[in-house]
């Protein structure tokens, strides 16, 4: 897993894994395997760091770490993919429910007919259901119409 890369720390649960994250910025292993050039540079690093050029410092950094903070915290357009997948899921679900309406469910029961619903309403009013705050409270029984 870690190959020939130098183990330099404990890491996550002791496993030698390289990862760039803010919560755990110093992973257990170096990012690259040691090459002869890197070894030479490491020898040079033993002396004064002022003697190292900027490029050499960068090389040493990239030897230890894969991405800088600015790189791994960079805003990526990944959100578009996530939103896209979400919308696709909604669309597919909508189509499935439409197909149910078209093919699976039969016609509405006869109690859904307008006349029967009217009759049902009439009966509710006659029985004075929910007389305090509900439907019948809105019916004026003296004038026989809605209040």
């Amino acid at each position, binding site marked *: 897993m870690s190959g020939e890369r130098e183990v330099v720390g*404990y890491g996550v649960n002791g496993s030698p894994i390289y990862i760039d994250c803010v919560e755990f910025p110093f992973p257990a292993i170096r990012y690259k395997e040691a090459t002869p050039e890197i070894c030479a540079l490491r020898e040079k690093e033993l002396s004064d*760091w002022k*003697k190292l050029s*900027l490029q050499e*410092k960068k090389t040493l950094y990239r030897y*230890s770490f894969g991405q800088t*903070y600015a790189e791994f915290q960079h805003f990526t*357009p990944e959100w578009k993919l996530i939103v896209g997948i979400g919308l696709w899921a909604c669309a597919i679900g909508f189509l499935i429910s439409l197909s149910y309406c078209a093919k699976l469910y039969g016609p509405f029961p006869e109690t859904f007919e307008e006349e029967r619903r009217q009759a049902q309403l009439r009966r509710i009013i006659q029985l004075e259901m929910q007389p305090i705050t509900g439907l019948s409270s809105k019916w004026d029984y003296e004038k026989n119409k809605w209040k």
Partner: protein
Amino acid sequence: MLRITAGKLANALRGTVSGTSRVAAVRCLHGTEESAEEFDKRYEKYFSREGIDGWEIRKGMNDLLGMDLVPSPKIIEAGLRAARRVNDIALAIRWLEGCKDKCGDHQATLYPFLLEKISPTLKELGVPTIEELGYDKPELALKSVYDL
């Protein structure tokens, strides 16, 4: 059943009556709260210890960067010197980056202050700042596929 309930109630009441002294006793077991100065000193001492190795430095830095605080300049300097002693400039640069990141929303005010405080050490050790390296912006970022 009633006896059990009554017994439990009595126990609970006893707990509330003499609770204060017991809480005090328990709190004393944890010792006194560590002040900010003591905390700084502890970590400074940790990083300045003779014979510290990269393993321990990484552990200390990981712990510090996981806490809800910005490391004080003294701790940062001690960390940089520790990196010098184990001969790892990448560690020093990463440590600087981590401390800058910890400034969070106050990066505009806090980071220049930190940099001003630690700049003598940076110059002495030859550690470049993040801006000098150009690491304040993504260096190896790929061009957006939409711009190709």
